[in-house]
Each structure stands twice: as structure tokens, then as C-alpha cells.
């Protein structure tokens, strides 16, 4: 086989999703955001929803999500994405409306907006990136930071006495009558990426068929904030994050 034969269109087995544009990403090498962005782009393309989708970007590392996916976006104030999504979906009920939020955005400053949107059963999808740290502001403690985990605002490790316990908000959301699908996934292996894609697809389908609120948590790494290499971050996540935030469906109606 010559090079030309290998790169000929009929031999193409993998391509960048068309919903993704060519802007170079600002995410650190090894960060989970890039993988999750690509999955969302693939699903929107496969479901042919580009014209129907409105994404809500958070405050945090993913604030610039709107630079990478070729869809309409609104960028929310810190934590308020589910409030924006609520109004948009109610006024445009045939659109796909999703929020993309980190742990600080969703589980600290936006706790009220998250819980009440989910409790009302808004027909939106919440993509929740949980890496246990504030990435963009430089590695501060998050509500999901594990006990003993070091951050710039818990330099000797998080303690219950000083900082309280990590918040498993996804477990809490699963208990609300408004949620129809609550799942926890990761993107650290090929198999995990495939499962996450299926989960997001299911969530989007739920939103379009007005089944209630869908929440897809993705337990993620932040190698810059964690001060570990991408590979070591994955190992650390499996060893430490997964026991506290076990993968799988918490609710699937």
C-alpha cells in the first residue's frame, strides 16, 4: 500500500467531527476537557442537531468551550448556567440545551441553580466535569476535593475540621424527582470514553424527548492542578477519586 492509497477518502476510518472548529485548544496537555468536547461534537453531528443546539459555558477552564464547538453558545456567570438553560429550554422547547460545568461552578457557587433546575425537571442536560480542583484560578480547593488532597487553599491537605467533607452532589441530584438519568463516567481509557459517549447521547435523547433533567458527571484529571504527569494523574484518579466517586449509573429511568 502506498501513502496515497492509505490517505485516500475510502480508507478514512477516523476524522475530526465537523461540529468542532480548528481553533487550537487552551487546555493543558492531558486534560479531560478536550476529550469530552470532542465527544459532544461527535454526538451533535451524529444526531444532526447542530442547528438545534444551544450550549451554556461556565466560568472556569471551560469558559472558552464556545471557541471550540461550532454551535450557538451563551456564557453564564459563575454557577448560573442551569438558570440560563432553564429559560432557554422553556422558551425553545424543541432545542437541545446543555450546560457544561466544573465542580466549583456546579457544586459550590451554583449549588442552588443546579439543584432547583434538576428538581423542577428542566429538560436539559448537565455535563459535570469533576476534577476536585479549581483549574483556571490556579488549583484551589473545590467542593469535591478529597480529604487529604493538597490544593493552593488547602496546602497541607483538606481536613474535615477545617474544610468540611467533599460534596457528592451527583448522588444528591439522583435523589430528586426531577432527574431522569444520573450517571458518573470517566474518559481515562478507550473503553471509558466509549461509555461516556453513550451516556451523553442518552442524556441528549432524554432532553429532546422531555423526560426530565439528565446529569452526566465525568470524573476527570487536572494534571496541572494536581501537579502530576497526565499518566500519573490517571493512576491517581483511579486509586483515589474512583473510590469516593464510583463510576456507573446512579439513576436511569
Amino acid at each position, binding site marked *: 500500500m502506498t501513502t496515497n492509497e492509505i490517505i485516500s477518502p475510502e480508507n478514512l476510518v477516523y476524522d475530526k467531527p465537523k461540529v468542532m472548529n480548528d481553533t487550537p485548544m487552551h487546555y493543558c496537555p492531558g486534560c479531560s476537557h478536550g476529550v469530552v468536547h470532542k465527544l459532544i461534537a461527535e454526538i451533535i453531528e451524529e444526531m444532526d442537531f447542530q*442547528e438545534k443546539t444551544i450550549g*451554556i459555558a461556565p466560568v472556569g477552564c471551560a469558559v472558552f468551550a*464556545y471557541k471550540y*464547538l461550532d454551535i*450557538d453558545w451563551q456564557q453564564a456567570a459563575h454557577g*448560573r448556567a442551569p438558570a440560563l438553560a432553564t*429559560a432557554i429550554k422553556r*422558551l425553545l422547547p424543541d432545542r437541545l440545551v446543555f450546560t457544561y460545568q466544573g465542580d466549583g461552578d456546579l457544586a459550590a457557587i451554583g449549588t442552588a441553580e443546579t439543584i*432547583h433546575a434538576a428538581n423542577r425537571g428542566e429538560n436539559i442536560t448537565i455535563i459535570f466535569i469533576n476534577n476536585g480542583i479549581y483549574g483556571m484560578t490556579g488549583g484551589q480547593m473545590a467542593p469535591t476535593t478529597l480529604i487529604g488532597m493538597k490544593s493552593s487553599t488547602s496546602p497541607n491537605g483538606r481536613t474535615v475540621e477545617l474544610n468540611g467533607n467533599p460534596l457528592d452532589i451527583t448522588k444528591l441530584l439522583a435523589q430528586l424527582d426531577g432527574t431522569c438519568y444520573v450517571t458518573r463516567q470517566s474518559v481515562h481509557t478507550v473503553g471509558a470514553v466509549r461509555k461516556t459517549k453513550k451516556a451523553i447521547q442518552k442524556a441528549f435523547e432524554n432532553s429532546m424527548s422531555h423526560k426530565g433533567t439528565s446529569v452526566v458527571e465525568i470524573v476527570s484529571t487536572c494534571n496541572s492542578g494536581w501537579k502530576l504527569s497526565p499518566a500519573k494523574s490517571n493512576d491517581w484518579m483511579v486509586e483515589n477519586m474512583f473510590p469516593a466517586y464510583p463510576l456507573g449509573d446512579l439513576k436511569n429511568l
Partner: protein
Amino acid sequence: MNDSKKQNIEEVKLMKGNEAIAHAAVRCGCDGYFGYPITPQSEIMETLMELEPWNTTGMVVLQAESETSSINMVYGAAGCGKRSMTSSSSPGVSLMQEGISYIACAELPCVIVNVMRGGPGLGTIQPSQADYYQSVKGGGHGDYKLITLAPASVQEMADHTVMAFDLAFKYLTPVLILADGIIGQMMEKVVLPPYQPRLTEKEISEKCPWATLGKPANRKPNIITSLALEAEEMEATNIRLQRKYREIEKNEVLIEEFSCEDADYLIVAFGTSARVCQKAVEMARAEGIKVGLLRPITLFPFPTERISQYADKVKGMLTVEMSAGQMIDDVRLAVNGRVPVEFYGRMGGIVPSPDEVLKALKDKIVKRQLIEN
């Protein structure tokens, strides 16, 4: 009697100012109301929930979990080019300031109603005008302004609702209706505005090409944001905003004048205070004191030029407010030291009486003039 005339006569209703806002919103094609209960304005959402406009015009009405959430729902709706609004009273409007700053920066059109009560803090549920600074000087962080309308009657509560949406979409900016507990709670006759249909999605995409309605293949993504990491980019946004505010100052000043033609003295007051002062002017005129009343209807843009003109005609001015004196700063800036500008006001939910205003006019302005001359 022809049908349209008959219909017009039937449209005269007796209702509270808060109720008039709700009816006017439905009638002027509002797409979404998002609010949180707080006295003295809860009748706005209560009336909307009773009207059930989702069954008639399709308007969405939603009780949010907080004022923070309400204003961010308004942001989301406005970003889709929808005519959206919220309402609250002083403490709740404080909570909305984050969202208002974002909406002003993202240049989205929306209507916010503040039916003011006495503060600071949890304060009281009685009427006040102590949110003047917050309303016209910014309120949230950053350099921005809100077009601020100050209704003084139930009729104006209805009229300003319609006008606020028109201005919001004309300038792509949040518009504030700054009422107080009296205007919200009192009942008066009102002619409600005629029904106008909500815009269709096609009309919205034509009129608001920036709206996030979903990206068709033939256009670039629409992105609603207030973020710019580069300082130069952020300065350009600020310059654009300031240019817009100068344009608003040039075009949109509204005032009402009462007995000003031959006035030796001028009272400046807005909203409920202006109603009280109108009576005080009548009483003063009966005693032979030639005093007029200038009522700013727009607080931003402020009638600086008109007040400046009066500074060359009258011997002194009295500003009357239900606060410690906030608008008086803007009156003094307009007068620029040419004549004395004095203040009379009550705070914490007390409404001044016409007698008090008349006494203040005599003591602080008229007598002083006699002594000085």
C-alpha cells in the same frame, strides 16, 4: 358607538400598579417573566400566574429559586432574542446586580422592575426611593448604565412596561422601571395597552441576528458573552457601551413640568415624591409663592440640560426624595452652583406630606432668599 370606541372604553380598569405591569407585559408581547416573591411587588407574579398567559399568548412565567436565578433566567431568555423581564424590590434587586452587570456588558435587552422599599438591609416593606444611586450610577461592577424609568402613576406602570421593552431592544440594554411601594400598591384608573402578538422565531432571527436560536449552516455561531481576556478588547467593549449611553442621553430624556412657566422656585422630584410635591405646589401657589415642579421621568438619562436652563431662571431649587438625598447630587451637578439647591426627604419608608414639603420650601428656599436679598 362603534366597536373600537366601545372596546376602548371597556379597557379602562381600576387596579394596582403592580397588576398593571403584569397586564401590560402580557399585552405587549412579553415572552418570559422570571421572578421571586418579595413585598411590595409580589402582585406582579401573582397576577401573571392568575392570567395564565401560557394558555393565550404562550408567554412563559416561572417562579425561580432566588433573584439571582431570576435575573440569570432573564439573561438566557434575552440571549435568544426573547422579550424577557423580572421584578423585585430593593433587597432582591441588590441580589440581581451580578446578573444585571453581565446583561449590560453582553448588550442584551431586558426589563427589570424595582418596586422600592425602605432599606438598608432587610429594611421595611414601606415605600422608599433610596435605590436611586444603585439604579442610575451602575449598581453592579464595572462601567455601565441602565435606562431608568420612574413611573408616578398606575397608568405609567403600564405605559412604561411597553416603553421599557421598546427602549431595551432599540439600544440592546437592560431597562429598569424604578417604582416604589406606593405606585406598586395603590389603585388607580388605567387604560391598558392594546394587545400585540409575541414575535415569531423567524421575526426574532431577522430583528436579532445575534440571538442564540441554534446555528443554521449558513451563519457563524452566535455567542453571548461578557468575557474578554485581552484588555484592549475589553476597552473596546467599554468604549462601545459609553457611546451608546451618550446616544441615550441625547435622545431619550423624558420629563413632566407642572406650573413651571413663571416659577421663581423649582421643586425637582420623581415618582411618589413628585405626586406629593404637585399638591405642595398647588398649596404654595394659593399662598402666592410662584413655584413649579419638574418631574424627571427618565432618571438615566437625567434631564441635566432642562434643569440647567432653569438654573438661569429661578432663585432656588428644592429636591424632594424618599431617601437621605441621592438625586440631589445630579440636580446640583446640573445647576453647577448657580442657585441654591436644598433637600427635603424622609427615610426608611416614611412618605413626606405636602405640608412638610411646603414648610421645607419656605424655610430652606423662600425665607433664605428674603434674608439674602
